[in-house]
């Protein structure tokens, strides 16, 4: 599903941020990406989103090589992934419904299909009654769930979350993790970057630990 093959990323200013990183996530697998800050977690996620290109090595999503994908093809590639951010990245001037509907509108879905899917997605994260609210009217946990609903509304085979519980209390964090496990159960691959060791240890999933840009086992 997602395969890193000897991937290195070097920035001219800071040198190697990632060094010979290799791993392979199977379809329907959950993995945590962990490590101290500056270990290269964010860089690794940026490589998956092709916001950055790796200096050496290859990254594959299914059989598609991300390192050489053309700029023009990027939007279509990104539709196969759902991203969840620590700061939610919601549009403040759009309703919850419109925020979640954005990926579908971009993919060219019809009006009725969008409505159906957004409602299903919001139902999944338990926000069905709040479609017309604006993000600022919601709590942090609710906003994060709107972000999750947006990430999964297009039914992408891969979900990537960057510190999804960073701003949430342990109880809400556990709830969010349960959601990810539900997605896993329908065959979605989930990669979660987190430094919340206690949360990670509570859950029995694969852990990828980065240390100074290298994967340690």
């Amino acid at each position: 599903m997602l395969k890193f093959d000897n991937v290195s990323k070097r920035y001219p200013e800071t040198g190697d941020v990632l060094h010979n990183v290799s791993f392979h996530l199977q379809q329907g697998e959950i993995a945590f990406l962990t490590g101290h800050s500056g270990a290269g977690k964010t860089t690794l996620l940026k490589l998956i989103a092709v916001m950055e290109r790796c200096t050496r090595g290859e990254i594959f999503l299914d059989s598609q090589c991300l390192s050489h994908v053309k700029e023009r093809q990027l939007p279509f590639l990104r539709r196969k992934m759902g991203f969840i951010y620590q700061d939610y990245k919601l549009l403040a001037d759009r309703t919850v419904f419109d925020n979640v509907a954005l990926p579908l509108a971009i993919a060219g879905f019809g009006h009725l299909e969008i409505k159906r899917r957004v409602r299903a997605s919001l139902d999944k994260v338990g926000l069905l009654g709040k479609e017309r609210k604006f993000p600022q009217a919601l709590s942090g946990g609710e906003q994060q769930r709107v972000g999750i609903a947006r990430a999964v509304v297009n039914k992408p085979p891969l979900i990537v979350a960057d510190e999804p519980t960073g701003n949430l209390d342990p109880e809400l964090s556990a709830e969010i993790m349960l959601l990810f496990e539900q997605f896993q159960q329908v065959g979605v691959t989930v990669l979660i970057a987190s430094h919340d060791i206690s949360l990670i240890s509570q859950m029995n999933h694969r852990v990828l630990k980065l240390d100074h840009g290298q994967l340690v086992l």
Partner: protein
Amino acid sequence: MKPVKRKPTRPIVKKPVKHDTRQTRTAGGNFVDKLHAYRDHHAHALFSSLGRLVATPFTSIMTIAVLAISIALASGFYIMVINVQQLTANLESSNQISLFLKDDVTDEEAADLAGNIRKNPSVQTVKVISKEQALTEFKTYSGFGAAINLLEKNPLPIVLQVLPKNALQDKQELDSLFKTVEKFDEVDYAQIDMQWVERLHSIVEVARCATTLFSVMIGIGILFIIGNTIRLELHNRRDEVMIAKLVGATNSFIQRPFLYTGFWIGFISGVSAWFIDAILMLILRQPVEKLSGLYEGELHLIFLSFTETIELLIISSLLGVISSWAVLLVQLRHTRPE
């Protein structure tokens, strides 16, 4: 061996495949649905971009006012040129010879002379303007009415206006006619009104050329103004653009509302410019009609025709779209998600 129907043992893996096909079917398979979605999206972009302009009235009005005045200036010059062109076209058709008769020539002698000249085959008509007629006309239009009343005797001569056949077509014929009529004893001074018409004609030609250059400069200015407006708008909505990029929006999807904004700015400016020109014309109408009296009603103020109005709107809308497109082409390439 007959295949046995079995419940799938690994529903976990099978489900997403089903999900994926459904997505493809709805998003890409049904052409009509997709077409409808595309049309809906365009309509949404069209109206939401107008809504954004209305939502920030102060900024929008400032931008549109600058553009409308610029466009009104350019089209106003154009209107001026077409009016002067019309005027010279009228003058060309009346390349008449004016014969100013000696002061002691009586009205009867003048009428005889007119009769004589009429017999010339290259003359179309001869009009006699008596001293009294000339004075009345002069009083009406010159504004010196009171001063003229003080004069003891009418200083104006009798004038014969000789209108030749085929006025400008044959310059030599006109010249020979001029020489013939100039030699009559009663004639004090003869004048062909052609030279100044020709001069005026070249002045109009220069004005027309200058207007074109002026309009091109204004057009370029408009490109920059709209381009900068769109650039600011893009900057204000940077977060939105980033997020849209991250969830898989193509550049053309992101561009669409901005292109419509450019269209609206151009279109509304064009409409406003038309109204500004119309108001200017209404103000100018009276003095021009007065002037028209001097040319015996041959001068009528002309405004943009229906076709020219449509052209004005198309050009201003196109300027909006083109400048937005150019700015987006450069800016979106440099906007990368962070």
